């Protein structure tokens, strides 16, 4: 349990609430329109907290024997899915945390989960295969075996799923069971994010680079120079900026104009240890970052990717995941000691707060 007390929030971070879960918290997210905050820990515990107060609403221990690996909250916010080392995908009710259905895929780990944007499908990466289930948990489509373990998944539109693995990104039309596109790159792709319009594919690679492709033009480029692998990537809502981890700095590539090829990225130097989580706000050029040093910072960015911090707090230990509330008026961070912290986020100026509540 935590031995360092989080210090007072600064700037736009204001006192909210904090709570604890049993083990290292690795995933979190807002449900029920921000009324509920769900946290999953590495041992397989899943917890639902009241969004405003942090009061525990429900708690499910050992949802996955061997450990929990992933969680995805349905776009409607009423149901969520978790998966783990037990090879099971579990769909649950957000109101009470009760299991709706368990889907046993097999013996391997289910490492990635993602609901499609319209909520019709749930994709689950299971070793070298990807399963697509419907809301009821029935199998809708299953991929062939990939050349290696699937390392990331992302929906590009309601029927099209992108998968990343060693050496390639593949786009599948899961409704018509066909492969739309294959983007090859000799390298171990460890993370993937698509721009909101699905055109830009960005992947962090094991060899400390970010590789991206523009599907419309077929252009691709490699951004190197990271001291470590960029495991965390986040696009802003317009797809103009891509924030990347890979060191204690946040490197932000701007896709405005002909960028980012040949441009100098924005760099945000707020943390003393490598960035361990990144999330753009739902609206506006506001990025939140969590670090292995336990600090959480929010920064407003300009079009070129540079920016200034507007709020900061210390979460006590390595930040496992961060999540903006759907209205962006609160930011949550969970850490390696199982501490859950939610700060209220206040916006200072009306010009910047355009689009916020």
């Amino acid at each position, binding site marked *: 349990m935590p031995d360092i007390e989080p210090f007072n929030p600064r700037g736009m971070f204001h006192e909210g609430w904090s709570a604890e879960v049993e083990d290292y918290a*690795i995933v979190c997210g807002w449900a029920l329109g921000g009324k509920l905050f769900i946290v999953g820990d*590495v041992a397989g515990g899943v917890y639902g907290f009241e969004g405003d107060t942090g009061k525990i609403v429900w708690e499910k221990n050992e949802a996955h024997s061997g450990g929990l690996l992933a969680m995805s909250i349905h776009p409607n916010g009423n149901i969520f899915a978790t998966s783990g080392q037990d090879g099971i995908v579990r769909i649950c009710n957000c109101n009470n945390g009760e299991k709706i259905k368990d889907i046993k895929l097999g013996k391997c780990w289910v*490492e990635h989960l993602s609901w499609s944007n319209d909520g019709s499908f749930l994709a689950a990466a299971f070793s070298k295969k990807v399963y697509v289930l419907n809301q009821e948990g029935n199998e809708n489509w299953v991929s062939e075996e990939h050349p*290696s373990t699937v390392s990331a998944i992302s929906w590009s539109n309601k029927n099209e799923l992108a998968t990343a693995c060693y050496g390639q990104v593949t786009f599948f039309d899961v409704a018509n069971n066909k492969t739309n596109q294959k983007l090859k790159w000799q*390298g*171990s792709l460890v993370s993937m994010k698509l721009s909101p319009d699905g055109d830009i594919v960005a992947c962090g*690679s094991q*060899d400390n*680079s970010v*590789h991206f492709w523009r599907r419309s033009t077929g252009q691709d480029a490699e951004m190197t120079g990271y001291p470590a692998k960029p495991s965390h990537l986040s696009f802003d809502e317009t797809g103009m900026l891509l924030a990347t981890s890979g060191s204690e700095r946040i490197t932000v590539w701007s896709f405005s104009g002909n960028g980012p090829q040949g441009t100098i990225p924005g760099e945000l130097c707020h943390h003393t240890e490598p960035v361990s989580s990144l999330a753009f706000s739902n609206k506006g050029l506001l990025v939140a970052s969590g670090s292995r040093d336990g600090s959480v910072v929010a920064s407003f960015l300009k079009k070129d990717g540079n920016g200034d911090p507007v709020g900061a707090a210390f979460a006590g230990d390595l930040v496992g995941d961060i999540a903006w509330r759907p209205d962006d008026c609160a930011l949550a961070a969970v850490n390696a000691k199982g501490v859950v912290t939610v700060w209220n986020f206040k916006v200072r100026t009306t010009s910047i707060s355009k689009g916020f509540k």
Partner: protein
Amino acid sequence: MSINERVPVTILTGFLGSGKTTLLNRILSEEHGKRIAVIENEYGEVGIDQGLVINADEEVFEMSNGCICCTVRGDLIRVLGNLMKRRDKFDYVLVETTGLADPGPVAQTFFMDEEISSEFILDGIVTLVDAAHIDQQLGRSDESSEQVAFADVLVLNKTDLVSDEALNSLESRLRDMNRMTRIIRAENAQVPINTVLNLSAFDLDQILKRRPTFLEPEYPFEWSGVYDVESGKYELTLEDGPDPEMSLVAFANQGVSEQELKEGAEASVRLYAEKAKNLEPGNTIPYDEHVSLKLEEKGTKSFILVVERSSKVGLFTQHTAEEFEMKVLKVDDKKNIREIPLKKERNWVAEHEHDDEVGSIAIERFGDVDPEKLNTWMGRLLSEKGVDIFRTKGFISYSGNPRRIVFQGVHMLFTAQPDKEWGNEPRRNQLVFIGRNLNEKEMQEGFDKCLI
């Protein structure tokens, strides 16, 4: 996180049937009070009372630069990444690789992946060898040679199935391939647990403590002895031994300090380079000359040593005195026999024939190196020969730096970090390379150019 807090990892490798699973079972079932996580990619009957066995696919990733020296294991990164989140529950991690696997990508993962290397430390590589079958495998498969080359500890298993003679010759062959390794003989993988866990195998000081001679130059002789004798006539007697002849150089006035012994050794090397003069039993041994004692006869063979005046006589011999029960005797007029005690003896690292492509090279030089020159030389060496250099270990003395620099590497990847202060110790550089087709002369010359 400091280095000491990192969780130690042992890589366990060896050919199918060499006894890995038996050893694993022993480690897991022994009372050692540790929580050990075992990551394996083979199914086996393994007790999991105190450990956790995770099966993982073997997934080797080559980097986009296409360099095989930079391959890592994706499965291992995933499993360790997850394990480290539950770090407080494990004290130790054992990674078992399949029989045919190259240990390179496994070891490299701990250098290449920043997240893994910040949480885990590679403690050592243990290779199990089936004493009954390895001899055939060494000639035929690259993998088995590589597994030997990577090993910090070689467990020579199933020794009960092989003769002592065959074991000795196998051990000597393995030692030629990897001079840094520690060889442990075992039946049914019965080895003390502390010989395979917590090795701190990358700690060169420990290795030197265990085998103080491994960085030394090789000599054409194995032994030297110094006898303090009065003037007179002495007998050198030898019993039946493993060889029908033995080369020898005798010196008068041989000192017994380490420095004097080394000077004697260097002088002997030059004499040994000359053709040996055959010497039958009963003849007098000349000083400062390379002779070959003829020992075909059965029973005790005796040679004469004449000492003109009180002196310390030094003998530098091809084999150890023990192997022939060699003695220096004084026989007086009344036929009383007195054995002259050894004033000093020393063993030397004897030259071996290098039959295998895989071998090891040691460089030892006093003085400081220029860091820039060393970087350039090392960079070029590893980029050109990285594929063939399996392991690198050593410490070096950077000019102007009060602390010695310890480094270790796998293929092209290496880490160098400041270690303890030199203090009064003479500043020197000790490097060991293990690899395939290494050019010793070229590498030593290359290193010499980095010296200031």
